[in-house]
């Protein structure tokens, strides 16, 4: 036994000598190299599609995403803060005359001017929040922002849903259901197995916490094309309500700290997804 341990220590030392931190040096060099190679980006003012606009979740979330993008060292951001311009408002202003002209055309009976026009092409997005990958938002607006900010890509997010919720731990449920089946089928246990199995089958574990659903998109400024988008759903579990017969444990209510944690976790998930797709050359097309 002692000889085996000595042998293992010698082999480990040999490996350290042969491979003296090469990977670490490469990893340390890579982020800086990638950031300088990535195109110029700006983070736009985000949108909030929830009922809770008073919470200013969009601003908070945008700042968290910006912070994590900067911390990753992988993105060449042109500003230190999200750009304050409201893209949705800018897009609406750009299209206002188009709506007036289209309404007039329909009223006069010239429907082809509308249906066969540029705005009706499949690739033209209805709105920013419904724009999918490959679709185009108003290029006049995106290219203007891009020129003003010296950015090739605009990063925009939408908070789609935000709220407190409860959800059953389905893994716990699957486990107890399986255990119940086994217990009820063990020969010889008889009534004990039947009762025990029944108790297990009725046990459940319900988590409470904050949930956030966000959409992130990267838009090429020159032509307004959405080159990347991702929807992330994040849950931050705060409390665990365990209910088995003869025992239950319920925890306290949620607070603002939990809400901020949920936004922070969502920002982490989003940036993690962006870095992953950046590495796989799927982010900037």
């Amino acid at each position, binding site marked *: 036994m002692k000889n085996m341990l000595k042998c293992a220590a010698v082999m480990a030392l040999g490996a350290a000598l042969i491979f003296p931190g090469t990977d670490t040096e490469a990893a340390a060099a890579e982020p800086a190299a990638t950031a300088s190679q990535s195109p110029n980006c700006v983070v736009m003012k985000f949108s909030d*599609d*929830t*009922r809770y*606009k008073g919470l200013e979740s969009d601003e908070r979330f945008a700042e968290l995403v910006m912070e994590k993008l900067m911390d990753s060292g992988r993105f060449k951001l042109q500003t230190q803060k999200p750009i304050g311009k409201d893209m949705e408002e800018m897009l*609406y202003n750009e*299209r*206002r005359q*188009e*709506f*007036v002209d*289209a*309404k007039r055309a*329909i*009223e006069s*009976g010239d*429907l*082809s001017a*509308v*249906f*066969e026009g540029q*705005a*009706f092409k*499949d690739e033209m997005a*209805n*709105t920013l*929040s*419904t724009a*999918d990958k490959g679709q185009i938002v108003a290029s006049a607006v995106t290219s203007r922002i891009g020129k003003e900010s010296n950015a090739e890509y605009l990063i925009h997010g939408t908070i*789609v*849903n935000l709220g407190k919720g409860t959800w059953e731990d389905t893994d716990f449920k699957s486990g107890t259901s399986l255990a119940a089946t086994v217990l009820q089928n063990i020969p010889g246990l008889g009534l004990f197995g039947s009762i025990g199995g029944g108790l297990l089958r009725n046990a459940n574990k319900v988590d409470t916490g904050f949930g956030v*659903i966000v*959409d992130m998109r990267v838009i090429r400024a020159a032509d307004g094309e959405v080159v990347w988008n991702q*929807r992330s*759903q994040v849950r931050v579990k705060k409390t665990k309500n365990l209910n088995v017969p003869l025992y239950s444990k319920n925890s306290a209510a949620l607070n603002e700290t939990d809400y901020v944690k949920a936004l922070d976790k969502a920002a982490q998930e989003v940036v993690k997804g962006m870095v992953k797709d950046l590495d796989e050359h799927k982010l900037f097309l």
Partner: protein
Amino acid sequence: MRRNKWMAAAVLGAFTLCLPFNMASAGKLDAYRNMLAQRNCTISYENITPAEREHNRDSSNLSATFGRMSTPPLYTHKGYKGMVVMQGEDRYVETNYGDYSKCQLKKGSDVYDFKREVKKGKETWKSFDGKATVVASEFQPEKELLYGESFGTSDVSRLLGVMLPKDRIPAGQPVYNYVGAGNLPNGQSYEDYKASSAAGLEAVRYYFDGTKLVRIASASYSRNGAGQLVGRKCILKIMDFSGTPDSSKLSMPAGLKAKSLQK
């Protein structure tokens, strides 16, 4: 006497001239109108222009249309595919988001609402509360008399509903009038309809490849809460619209039990 004959001829001539304008609406859409009106059809489509989320920013406008309010948030703003199968009083409506579908099966006066989920490659059918048995709710004909028949989301219900004969349009709902028809440079043809109401203005174009309905597009314009004119488009790609009901959809999926209200 001669004068009366001339007058009669003039009236008859004017009437004959008017006929083509009325009969022009008896175009390619009629075949599809009849399938819907006779409730014998299978329709399969894809909506590539999902609606913006409602009931969150400002509106408290409730709607009786199936599918508008209870789509899980994870699927909002996402395109979807759908299916409508009708055979007499039976009807199946599905809105499919890929790994999740909302389904409704109407069998006589029983209405079953359930969902389809795909997790880790495995497809399961359950009631909305996660059970393997779906309890029927009672069909409410007055709801459809007031708001129109439901074919899925509000966009799909409205665009298919435009095709129905005018006597099937509920009182108070916009009536879409035929505007005209024509041909497109790509070889397709179209028929246009338009409606105007206090809620706004909408035009709908039905595209045909030969006599086959391939696409429905709508452009609607209304004022938002701030008084701004906003426009919205909706495009349905029609994959199938036939007069043969897919009977496999008019019964409960395997593994899902139904509890009827009928005794």
